[in-house]
């Protein structure tokens, strides 16, 4: 909400400097987002009148104008489309610098005609964003005056208004709040106006068929208006709040919206059939062409402004949102009907969302406009119209709907101290509330009944009143204490710190990627199909939620092609049928980059070592079972068992998938979290000597080490302490389709030293078992 300082000052003569106002407003909850300095138009621009306008021969667009500033006449050639004889506009004389247009006015010759000045559009003057025609002023504007002296510079406070404070979407609301803070009075711009009388017949008619959606509606008749440009002061005010001036009637309705917070609409009475307006819900299949020439297909929940048309009624506006095309004020309008209405916020919000139309009126209505200001706002607008258009305001008004009853809130002043620890004297609490136009009724002791004004939709419960009193007193006066309570939180790692730190210390870099992805990305990485889709995504490439983490890591790998070696991991949520937390690891490139020392290539067993290291950190067993999964190399792919539980897959990314991303030799793991760790079961050091025996076994190529080691472990007896592979040999002296594996068994008893013959016996068992399974022992 833009609040021009000079306008605020008019309502609140006690207002301090701009900077102080900005700080005070921020301090009471109307935060200043920005202080905007609007410059006055350039020196050298004068008010001038077009004496004659003649088309330049041989040109489609150019007109030759004779322009007078009251003293001199100027020959000026212009391409502006809205020139006409008698029009009053702005002339930049020779030598005038127009910063907004980026040039200095000089003598020119166009199509052989001298042009000694420039007639200006509002944009060229730097006043507001309109460049499709010259700025226009009303006929009674004094020519020859410097525009610079009439249209002064302005400072605007741009306030961020929170959705609960729709009442401060107006100069009146902001002035009232600031006056309460300053404990001073403000001037209500409509305070002394005489209201029109609903009991006097004005031959207008209003009907409302849905009083829940439209609680009040007034129509004011004003005859014999003269449509013309608004005077400079009004144009300047509208420009300073960010609006484009159009004509006096439309400008006044906008002015009153910003001044009092009540949106309104003026109809050309001569085009209003039967002088009647009917507010009703739309019928199935009805449509309306809006002001912006968009055809709106209406549904039954839409609320319409309509007028009689033959035996039925036709829509002329979408209530509280936007007017219909061909029902606005035209330059030849003489009699008008001025609408002021109040609409239900939810009805308006639904309509605006349904038709995707955002307007200033809709924004205000969906947040709540004062339902009881209608006649006052109507009187204010009418008096301005009478003043600026010469129209005569009818003493009667057509009005449907009652004033809204005011809400009361029970309030205990002691709660301000209890909740805020602010010790605010009762007298001051009362003053603040009354300055905000609350009625305060002191019942017995610590019990007040607060009647909130009709514009304060947000005052509903005691806490709301506490906030009102406290924000005016100042949140800066709140002291600092610490919560008095007994609470001992459990000790736990809720954020995965151990896991993250372990992986980082193993040499992996953590990454965080987007949970959004696309069907195409998931398909490319052969990840599960998307389950959760966004209704309103930011483009198709972010339209679904990821079903796996590794595709995100692949994308990060692509973005890091400059790295000779990449080792990354991510902890994040994936969204399949249920939302789950996962860990994914990706490694590619070299394990050790070459320099004068040899490089070491990353391979499957190094990648597996990372997982084994992690398992040892958690003191659990890790087992990999060969199992194919679509996204992994069929021969380098494993199901991961963590402490015996299946938690995911690891292996080499399928070479075809890797190639589709322009990558190669990429290893990935995708594991469910949380990873469990085992309970610690301490065992004293075994100080008995151990015995080791080696065995070389000839194995078929497709042997699985898991099953071989199971055989050995099951036949080696209870003193087998460890088993390891120390050599694998594929050689000439091994028959085709076989290879040799050398294993080392270590035996150790806790009680005594094992003797050779015992160990020999265990080894014999192992050999027998292996031979019985068809394996042969080398060197035997």
């Amino acid at each position, binding site marked *: 909400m833009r609040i021009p300082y000079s306008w605020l000052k008019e309502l609140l003569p006690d207002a301090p400097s701009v900077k102080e106002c900005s700080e005070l407003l921020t301090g009471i*909850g109307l935060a200043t987002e920005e202080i905007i300095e609007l410059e006055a138009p350039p020196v050298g621009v004068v008010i001038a009148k077009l004496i004659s306008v003649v088309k330049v021969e041989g040109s489609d667009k150019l007109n030759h104008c004779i322009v007078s500033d009251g003293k001199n006449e100027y020959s000026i050639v212009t391409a502006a489309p809205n020139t006409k004889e008698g029009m009053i506009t702005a002339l930049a004389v020779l030598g005038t610098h127009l910063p907004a247009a980026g040039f200095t006015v000089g003598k020119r010759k166009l199509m052989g005609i001298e042009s000694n000045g420039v007639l200006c559009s509002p944009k060229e003057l730097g006043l507001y964003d309109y460049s499709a025609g010259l700025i226009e002023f009303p006929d009674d504007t004094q020519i020859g005056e410097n525009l610079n002296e009439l249209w002064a510079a302005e400072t605007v406070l741009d306030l961020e208004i929170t959705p609960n404070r729709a009442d401060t979407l107006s100069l009146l609301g902001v002035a009232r709040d600031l006056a309460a803070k300053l404990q001073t009075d403000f001037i209500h711009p409509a305070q002394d106006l005489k209201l029109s009388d609903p009991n006097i017949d004005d031959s207008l008619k209003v009907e409302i068929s849905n009083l829940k959606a439209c609680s009040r509606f007034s129509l004011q008749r004003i005859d014999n208006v003269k449509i013309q440009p608004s005077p400079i002061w009004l144009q300047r005010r509208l420009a300073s709040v960010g609006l484009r001036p159009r004509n006096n009637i439309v400008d006044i309705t906008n002015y009153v919206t910003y001044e009092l917070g009540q949106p309104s609409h003026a109809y050309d009475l001569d085009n209003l059939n039967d002088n009647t307006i009917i507010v009703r819900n739309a019928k199935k299949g009805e449509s309306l062409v809006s002001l912006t020439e968009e055809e709106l297909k209406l549904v039954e929940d839409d609320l319409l402004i309509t007028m009689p048309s033959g035996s039925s009624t036709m829509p002329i506006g979408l209530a509280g949102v936007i007017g219909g095309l061909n029902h606005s004020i035209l330059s030849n309008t003489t009699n008008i009907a001025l609408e002021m209405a109040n609409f239900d916020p939810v009805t308006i919000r639904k309509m605006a969302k349904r038709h995707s139309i955002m307007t200033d009126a809709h924004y205000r209505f969906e947040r709540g406009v004062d339902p009881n200001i209608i006649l006052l706002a109507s009187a204010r607008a009418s008096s301005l119209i009478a003043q600026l258009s010469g129209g005569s305001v009818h003493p009667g008004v057509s009005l449907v709907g009652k004033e809204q009853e005011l809400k009361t809130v029970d309030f205990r002043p002691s709660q301000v101290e209890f909740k805020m620890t602010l010790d605010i004297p009762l007298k001051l609490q009362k003053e603040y509330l009354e300055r905000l136009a609350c009625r305060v009724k002191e019942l017995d002791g610590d019990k007040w009944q607060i009647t909130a004004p009709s514009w304060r939709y947000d005052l509903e419960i005691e806490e709301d009143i506490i906030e009102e009193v406290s924000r005016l007193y100042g949140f800066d006066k709140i002291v600092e*204490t610490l919560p008095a*309570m007994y609470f001992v939180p459990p000790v736990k790692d809720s954020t995965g710190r151990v896991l993250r730190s372990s992986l980082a210390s193993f040499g992996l870099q953590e990454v965080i990627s987007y949970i959004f992805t696309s069907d195409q990305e998931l398909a490319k990485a052969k990840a599960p199909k998307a389950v959760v889709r966004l209704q309103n995504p930011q483009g198709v490439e972010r339209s679904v939620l990821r079903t796996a983490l590794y595709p995100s890591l692949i994308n990060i790998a692509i973005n890091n092609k400059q790295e000779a070696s990449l080792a990354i991991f991510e902890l994040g949520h994936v969204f399949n049928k249920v939302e789950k937390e996962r860990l994914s690891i990706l490694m590619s490139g070299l394990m050790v980059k070459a320099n004068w020392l040899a490089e070491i290539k990353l391979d499957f067993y190094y990648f597996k070592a990372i997982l084994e290291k992690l398992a040892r950190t958690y003191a659990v067993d890790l087992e990999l079972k060969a199992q194919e999964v679509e996204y992994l190399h069929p021969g380098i792919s494993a199901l991961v068992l963590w402490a015996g539980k299946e938690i995911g897959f690891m292996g080499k990314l399928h070479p075809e998938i890797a190639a589709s991303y322009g990558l190669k030799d990429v290893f990935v793991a995708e594991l469910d979290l949380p990873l469990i760790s085992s309970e610690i079961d301490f065992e004293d050091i075994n100080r008995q000597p151990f015995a080791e025996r080696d065995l070389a076994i000839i194995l078929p190529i497709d042997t699985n080490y898991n099953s071989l080691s199971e055989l050995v472990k099951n036949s080696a007896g209870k003193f087998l302490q460890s088993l390891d592979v120390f050599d694998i040999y594929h050689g000439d002296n091994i028959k085709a389709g076989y290879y040799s594996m050398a294993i080392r068994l270590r035996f150790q008893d806790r009680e005594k030293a094992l003797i050779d013959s015992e160990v020999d016996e265990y080894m014999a068992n192992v050999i027998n078992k292996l031979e019985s399974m068809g394996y042969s022992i080398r060197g035997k």
Partner: protein
Amino acid sequence: MIEEFNNEIGKIESLQELQDLRVKYLGKKGLLTQQLKALGKLAPEERKQAGQSINRDKKQMLAIIDDAKTRLEQKAINAKLAAERVDVSLPAYKLSTGGLHLITKTINKLEDVFRSMGYDVVMGPELEDEFHNFDALNTPKWHPARDLQDTFWTTDGRVLRTHTSPMQVRYMETHKPPFKVVVPGKVFRNEAVDATHEAQFHQLEALVVAERITMADLKGAITEMASALLGKDTKTRLQPSYFPFVEPGAEFAIWWKSPKTGKEEWLELGGCGLVHPNVMKAVGYEGVTGFAFGFGIERLAMVSYGIPDVRYFYQGDMRVLRQFRGEL
């Protein structure tokens, strides 16, 4: 003879030569051994004197040989050590180095701060239902307050949580006051992405509920957090604002010295307030009050390190990420 021996041993360079010299003089057929053997031919009185003289020479030779041996062994060790010398300044193997993401590091630091203040730390789902993200937080359907947060909706009517606040509700549904808890995590807003806006970012939210929790407790807690995070000389500023799930509500800023610019200023961090009675009602709490405050992690990290673009956090560029290693 001893002069000759001394002369020869002075020229010896290796243990082998020393051994040869020992054999030459003291071996079975050595020069000194032969002299000893020749003693029997001498007269008894001469024999005694000559014997003493030879034995003295032998003792002396043995001692000299021992000395020489020690010297030569030391020399051999020195030579070996010299040969094993490496150039410690040459580059080593290029092993990969890991690190935590800057967001994780910032959250870890905050977690430490809050744990030291006695808070529990919990996490929640990122895909939420409308009830927990909005309704239970006093933000009914069709209320303009829903516009405060541009929301991603799923086709089945769920939402990507727009703030960490739904976890407030989930925590209260399953715990009884008094408690102090913080919730860090990802949140999502359907905003145009640029250098300061991301569709995905992180928040941290604190919630404290007990018999009497005041706005002063809230202010005190924020200052305590800020002091633990930034050092003792900090303070908190509250300015009235509106968040539907608190009343009264405020924006909070902390006074800090920007480590990047060195300027002392207010850092506007987030929103806060006393838990709205409607939220208490939604979770069935009675007779308690509470406060909540929350803020964005990316912003804190960006101003702390002078990171120019919020998108850097999610692009996974190693040239950015590896700059934040250390402090695991």
